[in-house]
Every structure is written in structure tokens, then in C-alpha cells.
């Protein structure tokens, strides 16, 4: 169990897919314009990551290594399509926001990267922890980035068309935050913050 927790926590901090491994950034920058969309994207990624990690790990001994990549991709693509269809059927407003980025989870390097680097070599138990940790770590950074962009860029946070948090009237945010350059700048600041936090906790442990 201690090993499980260690693997899970690594995804959140020292091996965070976005701020440390820096994979899967393209979709991150694109969907982080709205907190609502970012949350659903996070849920979709967690689901796909946990399911594909678990399944690939369970069958790792029977998947021949020569064809492992095609097999991984088929498994990942199936789970992504399931998410895609369910979102289209039951959450159309969310699907309208995320659109193409849901099917593109298939080629998100976080999923394939974890399948190859972790699930193919580790037990089912630990692979699930890795999927969950990576997915949650991804989602936290994504939602924080989306919050900063939406709140300061557009001056309000909206859920299903309802503003739940508003800047005082007359606030005109820097619209650059809603565009890619602003996303890059904010993301850089988040990386710096994460590094600082990780470094501080590791020096504390040493001391």
C-alpha cells in the first residue's frame, strides 16, 4: 500500500506529467480557456489513463513486445471513443466546448507514455495508481491554469452559462490570457512554482 501511495503521489508532484515531464501540452493550452471545460477534460483523461494503464498492465505478459505500440493505441483509442460518445450523448454543452480535443486524447503522449513507460513493466495494482496519479496531477494543473486564464482574462468564471465568480463590473482583463501567448506565460509561471515547491520539500526531507 505504501508503494501504491508513493506511485500515486509521484504523478501529482515530482513526476507531474505537465509541469515536470512536460508532455501533453498542446491540448492543455487549448482547453484551459474555461474551468468547466478543463474539469471535464481532466475527468476524461483520468478515465482513459486509469482504464488503459490497468488493462495494458493486466495483459502485459501476453502482448508481444514487437506489436505493443499498435495494441496500446487500439486500447487507448477504444476508451477515448467511449468517452467521446458518452459525452456527446449526455453532456452536449460540454462536448461543444471540448470538441476535437476529446478524440485527440488518443494521441496525447501522456497516455501512450504511461502505457509504455509504466504499465507495460509494472503490476496492475501499481499501474492503476500511476494512471490515477498522473490523471489527477494533470487535471489539477489544467484546472489551475484554466482558472487563472478565465478569471483574469474574461473577468468571470462560468458553469453551464451561470457566472459563479465575477470580477467587479468594469474590469477589462488582459485578453492575451485567453490566447496562446498568455497561456504559455502563465504555464511557465506555474512550472516555476511547482519546481520551487518540489525543491523546498526535498531539501526539507534532506535536512
Amino acid at each position, binding site marked *: 500500500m505504501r508503494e501504491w501511495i508513493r506511485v500515486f503521489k509521484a504523478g501529482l508532484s515530482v513526476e507531474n506529467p505537465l509541469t515536470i515531464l512536460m508532455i501533453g501540452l498542446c491540448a492543455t493550452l487549448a482547453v484551459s*480557456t*474555461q474551468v468547466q471545460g478543463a474539469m471535464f477534460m481532466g475527468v476524461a483523461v483520468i478515465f482513459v489513463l486509469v482504464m488503459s494503464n490497468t488493462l495494458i498492465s493486466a495483459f502485459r505478459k*501476453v*502482448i*508481444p*513486445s*514487437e*506489436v505493443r505500440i*499498435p*495494441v496500446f493505441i*487500439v*486500447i487507448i*483509442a*477504444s476508451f477515448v*471513443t*467511449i468517452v467521446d*460518445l*458518452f459525452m*456527446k*450523448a*449526455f453532456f*452536449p454543452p460540454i462536448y*461543444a466546448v471540448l*470538441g476535437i480535443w476529446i478524440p485527440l486524447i488518443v494521441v496525447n503522449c501522456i497516455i501512450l507514455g504511461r502505457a509504455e513507460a509504466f504499465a507495460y513493466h509494472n503490476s496492475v495494482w501499481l499501474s492503476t495508481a500511476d494512471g490515477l496519479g498522473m490523471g489527477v496531477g494533470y487535471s489539477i494543473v489544467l484546472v489551475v491554469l484554466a482558472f487563472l486564464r*478565465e478569471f483574469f*482574462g*474574461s473577468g468571470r468564471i462560468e458553469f453551464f452559462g451561470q457566472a459563479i465568480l465575477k470580477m467587479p463590473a468594469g474590469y477589462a*482583463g488582459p*485578453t492575451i490570457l*485567453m*490566447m496562446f501567448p498568455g497561456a504559455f506565460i502563465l504555464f511557465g509561471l506555474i512550472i516555476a512554482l511547482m519546481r520551487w515547491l518540489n525543491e523546498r520539500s526535498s531539501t526539507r526531507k534532506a535536512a
Partner: protein
Amino acid sequence: MKSSPLRLILSVLVVCVVAAAGLAATYAVTAPEIAAQEKAAEADALRGVLPDAATFEPVDDAVLIAAQELAGDSKVDAIFRALDTSGKQIGWGVKVGSRGYGGYINLVLGLDRDGKVSGATILTMNETPGLGTRIQTEPSFLEQYLGLPAGFTEKDVKALDMISGATKSSRGVRNSVVVTSIVFDQVLKDAGEVR
């Protein structure tokens, strides 16, 4: 460890068959739901732009094709006749799309029998959130089209305000309205649609 070719083929085949079966099952569950959602969204939009109408029926294919030929860079996806409870025609609902900043902005426009815009709703769009999406979040933008006189022309549409900072998105909406006016003028008016 090297695997035999047969084993490679079999393992990929098995994975694909299982995956396909899983997806087929998911699709069977979600497909009716997805179709219903799309229909509901369309019906909602039509009712929104023509509040007095009771039913909507699609126009003949020939009329739609004639309209599509006039559309140019825009596209006309569907035209509906709007009927009130007594079956009298009170106007048209037009599904029309033009390119904005991020692909097509799809609108539903309602026209009354004189060709006056009775309502405009954005169905789907991919504009930059917070910038291009202001064509939707600032209601005054779409509302100004309701003030156009009957038989309005491109010149009338171009005299209306655009949203600064969202020029391309505004232009996408504007082009759709212009196309709708042309379609009304050249197709719907002459097609014997008015009963």
C-alpha cells in the same frame, strides 16, 4: 524473446476484435441519445427564433439546392417552413453558416413572411473564448439584426455595428445574414412557398 509472426498477427487481431465489439456496444447505447440531442438542439433554436410557430417542416429539396447555389462561401444547411397552429405559414427558419475566425459559425435565423429577421441564434461555433464568443455573450450584437427593415439588403446589414476585437467573428455572422437575405429575395419569395 522473439515471437512467431502468427502470434503477432493473432494478438493484434484479438485486441482489435474485442475493441470493435466494445465500441459497437457503446455506439448502440449512445447513438439514439446523440441523435435526439441534436434534434432537440435544432428544435430549440428554431422555436427560439420563431416563437409563434407551432411546427416546422423542411422545404422541398429543389428549393434548398437553389438556395445553396446562392450561398457562395457560406453554407445553407436546411430551410424550414414555420407553421402556426392553424397550419398557416408564418415564416422560415434557415440554418446557415459562414466562416468566422475558427471555422464555421452556424446560426439559425428566423424570417417572417415579409423577410424581416424574427430571431437569430448561434447553434455551434469555434471562436476564441472571451473574444470571438462575444458575438454570443453580448446579446445586443445579435439583437441588432432584428431591427433590419423588411426586404433588407447587404447595404443595410453592413451599416450595423461589429464588435471591435472580434471583427472576423462578427463578419461571419454578418455574411450569414446577408446570404439569408439573398436566399429570401431570390428563392423563397419566388418559390411559391408563401401559402
